[in-house]
């Protein structure tokens, strides 16, 4: 640990965490390496692939483009927390039923991004179209599925949540 390490505290998946971290450490490296929260994945480390998508203070962010020290006092939610709370259970079930994942490496980030879209749609009482879904997920790279099944799964949940 370098001399420049800083104390930082935040709430991660509902748990208060206080750690000493190097200022250069990204949020996703902090979660994975220091806290063992390996559900957020590292794909490109420059904000393009979306594998480290997570929620900070209610907004989805790239865990590789945010530093851990920027999260002082923040509410951080990862795939582990979103799973445990049950908030995305229907999305997870739809991804499984539709085989909307193959290797699964992009999936935690993909589901976090999809949930962001669906939450906004619920707030505006709208149902996103397939094109809306494709557009919203266009920052999340999946090499396996070709996206069709992912769009199917998200669309199915969007319709179900809207009671259609």
């Amino acid at each position, binding site marked *: 640990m370098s001399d420049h390490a800083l104390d930082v505290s935040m709430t991660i998946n509902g748990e208060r965490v206080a750690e000493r971290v*190097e200022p*250069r*450490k990204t949020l996703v490296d902090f979660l994975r*390496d220091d806290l*063992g929260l*390996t*559900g*957020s*994945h*590292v*794909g*490109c*480390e*420059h904000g*393009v*692939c979306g*594998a480290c998508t997570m929620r900070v203070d209610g907004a989805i962010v790239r865990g590789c483009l945010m530093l851990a020290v920027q999260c002082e006092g923040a509410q951080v939610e*990862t*795939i*582990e927390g979103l*799973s445990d709370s049950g908030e995305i259970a229907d999305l*997870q079930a*739809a*991804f*499984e*039923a*539709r*085989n909307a*994942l*193959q*290797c*699964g*490496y*992009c*999936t*935690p980030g993909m*589901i976090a991004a999809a949930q962001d879209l669906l939450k906004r749609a619920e707030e505006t009482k709208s149902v996103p179209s397939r094109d809306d*879904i*494709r*557009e919203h*997920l*266009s*920052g*999340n*790279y*999946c*090499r*396996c*599925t*070709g*996206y*069709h*099944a*992912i*769009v*199917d799964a998200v*669309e*199915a949940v969007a*319709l*179900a949540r809207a009671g259609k």
Partner: protein
Amino acid sequence: MKITPDSPPTLTALDRPNSYIGRSVPRPNLHRLTQGRGLYVSDVALPRMAHVAFVRSPHAHARIKSIAADAAKNSPGVIAVVTGAELAKVMTPWVGVLTHLKGLKSAPQSPIAVNVACWQGEAVCAVVARSRAQAEDACELVEVSYEELPAVTDPETALDPKTPVIHASLGDNLCFERKLDVGSVDKAFAESDAVVETTFMFGRHTGVTTEPRAVVADWNEGERRMTVYHATQAPHMMQDLFAKHLSLAADQVRVLTKDVGGSFGIKVHTYADEMATVALSKLLRRPVKFVADRIESFVTDIHARDHRVKAKIGVKKDGTITAFEIDDLTGIGPYSVYPRTSGIEANQVVILTGGPYTCANYRAQARVVFTNKNVMCQYRAVGHPIAVAVTEGLVELAAAKIGMDPLELRRRNLIADDAYPCASAAGLKFEQLSHHEALAHLDAMMNYAGLRAEQKKLRGQGIYRGIGFASFIEVTNPSAAFYGVGGARISSQDGATVKLDSQGAVTVHSGVTEQGQGAESVLAQCVATSFGVSMDKVRVITGDTDNTPYGGGTWASRAAGIGGEAAWQAGKALRGNVLAVAGAMLQAKPEDLDIRNGVVVDKATDTERLSLEELARVAYFRPDTLAPGFQAELMATRHYVPRAWPFAFTNGIQASYLEVDTDTGFVKLLKHWCIEDCGTIINPQLVDEQIRGGVVQGIGAALFEQCLYDERGQMLNGNMADYLVPMAAEMPDITCGHVVSPTADSELGAKGAGEAGTAGAPACIMNAINDALRPLGAHPLTDMPFTPGKILRALGKV
């Protein structure tokens, strides 16, 4: 869409009670992945684990004059700084050749470059530290003095006498050459009514797996045993290679592979930095982890498809194809990749071109040359995207030249569905294909006539849409003919062990691996069906050389067809063993009994006789109650390898419908269709998703992906911002359809389905773009990827 649950079909291809064959059951291993609870190698952390980062050559070709490491050694957290010469004491070099690719040659390759670095990105020094960040910090402090050497970067001039030879010991820069001349090609061209000649260019591209390559090696000096957590497609192959080059016995090496974040052929090769990591663990006697970062991935993950193909087709006025001729040139980097070699892709281009058609006149030449760029090797659909694009590109250009509909020209030349078994001009043996049925199915499914009418109408409004097709054949279920006969220790057979536990549930151990394609689900479906239990009673274990039968792993679309058949047979064998126990317990003839839904029943009446749990209880805990001399055997192993055919060829046809913006050169994909015949379909959903994912990978090659190098061998776009991959917004919905021609080589009859999408999609997109632009008089585009700039140039707008 709404998701409809799977329900059992009334009759299945393999008609057992409670059959899972032909059903879209969800994969049992998905829960942990959707919850972020997978275990990828990048997640693995072990006590005392160190991290390695590599100093990599900034030059395409350079002599390493000196390495000054003192400053790095004193950097915080550093455990060791190791050069190629030092690591050579622990690990022997390797040479990527196969004897059945006659004349193929390559030079010895070391885990870390010794004396000379041969491509930009080759590791020249390793730094091991307590964290990856510390290792990278120290890499900055290693001072390497280089003498830059001339770089060979253009395959076209690689064989010129004045071009420097990369490996002096080889004499020249030729890795491999293949020639074929069948029928009377010159006569056929002379007698043709039209001849089309063009040059196809294929962009060098790569797999861009979402999880980069990763390995954790753990040498235990106390056990004298190496455990390697490895994101690989072929654990047993890697066990063999790690052992060989560390001078260990194979049983001193255990390879563990759990979740793998995408592979597509990228993770089936020997990588110098992964070999170095394993050697470092032996040297340092502690666990060492290496995870490639994205830039390292771009300059060291194998590349593929950098081919230039001069090609020619002859055709009669009635549409009869008279001859094909190709001249393929490919630059594969400085080494043929071990152990599969870098000659296979060109060889595939030679043997697959023209493959769907009856045309008997075919001449081909392929030359594989060394260059100072990153190495190339087998990537999803090896050679197929090139052979299919060349063949189908020529077919549609010929159709346009004689004014015939492209589907009609195919109908007149595709091998008839009742002509099998037969062979192609290049000598490929086909058991049973279905080109015509697939074409008819596609024609109807896409409403071809309706689309043509729409296309014509829109052209009148200045909207340019194109329809493109690609018929294809695909190599699947390879026998020993692919690698084994050439001396590579790559298993074409695979095994499955099935055992009954003490509560009547079943565990399957298989040599194939799960890369996300659904292999574990397929294995569970096969065993559940052939043994006779519900799928929730079947647990699958793969990716552990200590605990699975020896096998080849996952590549060349073999996991379902070969691994699935072994599992199917092992399930049957265990059923026989269990019914022998049941017969002994019930005083019945085993042949009068069956296992259905986890219960031993009378075969004829379906009457319940005995639960598996009760049978297991007696067999394991009260064997004293069984007849004297009777021994229950509640584990069975079966192996399978294709023997009747060298490969189980599959076939199909794809179509693309797209719109070209003639002002911007952008291509909008409207719809894609694929009809495929992979024999017996074990899980329709998994097959369709393999096709969809494969199609999109092929679309990437056609429209976006290219590893750009300058003339000095520097990669210019080694990051995901500059190297474009398909994302959701640009991709079309993809409709799949099937024809089923099972192979008689196995009881299941399943052929592979993993690569067909990638094989056909680039050709389809190319043909659709050219179809869209034909009325504008554009010169046909044959240089992938088809970027907006190239399209505007073809239109004469820039």
